[in-house]
């Protein structure tokens, strides 16, 4: 039942409820070596107790101690993703990553819009300020002229002394 290439489901521990493929026998009796592969079902390449495995009717043709890449090629050839209704973890992660990037882009666009608005408001305020300023400046200039005139007189007086 538990020969090389048999697809099983793990029924214990953190990887319970996930599919895996048997690669070979372990040194100890009652144990086998198993992979998900990790990029598909999140099950690591590790030894596993036979009592923690539930066999399925599916089997693939692989050599003993086959690499994850070889197993992935056979999975795609025999359409095992559709047969077992497996969603690849690597693709789910890609989708999540794209969604996150979209969110970040939207945020950046919003921030840029707000910054532009703030700058426009600043420019407007500066323009209004400039238009208002000349009236005030005239008054000030008049005052200054009087003040400076007085000062000038004082200076002249000091020089005379």
């Amino acid at each position, binding site marked *: 039942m538990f020969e090389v290439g048999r697809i099983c*489901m793990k*029924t*214990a*521990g*953190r990887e*319970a*409820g996930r599919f895996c493929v048997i690669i070979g026998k372990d040194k100890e009796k009652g144990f086998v070596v198993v992979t998900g592969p990790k990029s598909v079902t999140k099950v690591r390449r590790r030894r596993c107790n036979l009592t923690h495995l*539930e066999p*399925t*009717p599916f089997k693939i043709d692989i050599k003993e101690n086959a690499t994850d890449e070889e197993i992935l090629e056979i999975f795609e050839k025999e359409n095992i993703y559709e047969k077992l*209704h497996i969603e690849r973890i690597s693709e789910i992660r890609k989708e999540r990553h794209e969604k996150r990037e979209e969110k970040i882009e939207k945020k950046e666009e919003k921030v840029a819009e707000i910054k532009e608005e703030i700058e426009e408001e600043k420019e407007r305020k500066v323009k209004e300020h400039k238009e208002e300023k000349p009236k005030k400046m005239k008054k000030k200039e008049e005052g200054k002229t009087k003040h400076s005139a007085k000062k000038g007189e004082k200076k002249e007086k000091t020089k005379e002394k």
Partner: protein
Amino acid sequence: MPRRSERSRSLRKIKVNTPGGRRKIHLERKKNAPAKCAICKKPLAGRKKGRDSDIAKLSKTQKRPERPFGGFLCPSCMRTEIKKRLLKSFQ
């Protein structure tokens, strides 16, 4: 006459040795009952007892075991549940 709160049994009593050498009785709220399996009603391991306010301070890994249905089903019930679902998917 004792205080009103001391007359009820809603608080549990703890004996404490004070630094002055006396032995005093402190009153504390009771802990929650242990969590149980939803199918077989066995008490679950891996979930700490205590008041809700104390458990809320713990980390996520201290609150429940890290496996599917962790903290809700016991491991043996979880195993049978997974096998059932596997059989259903092939029918």
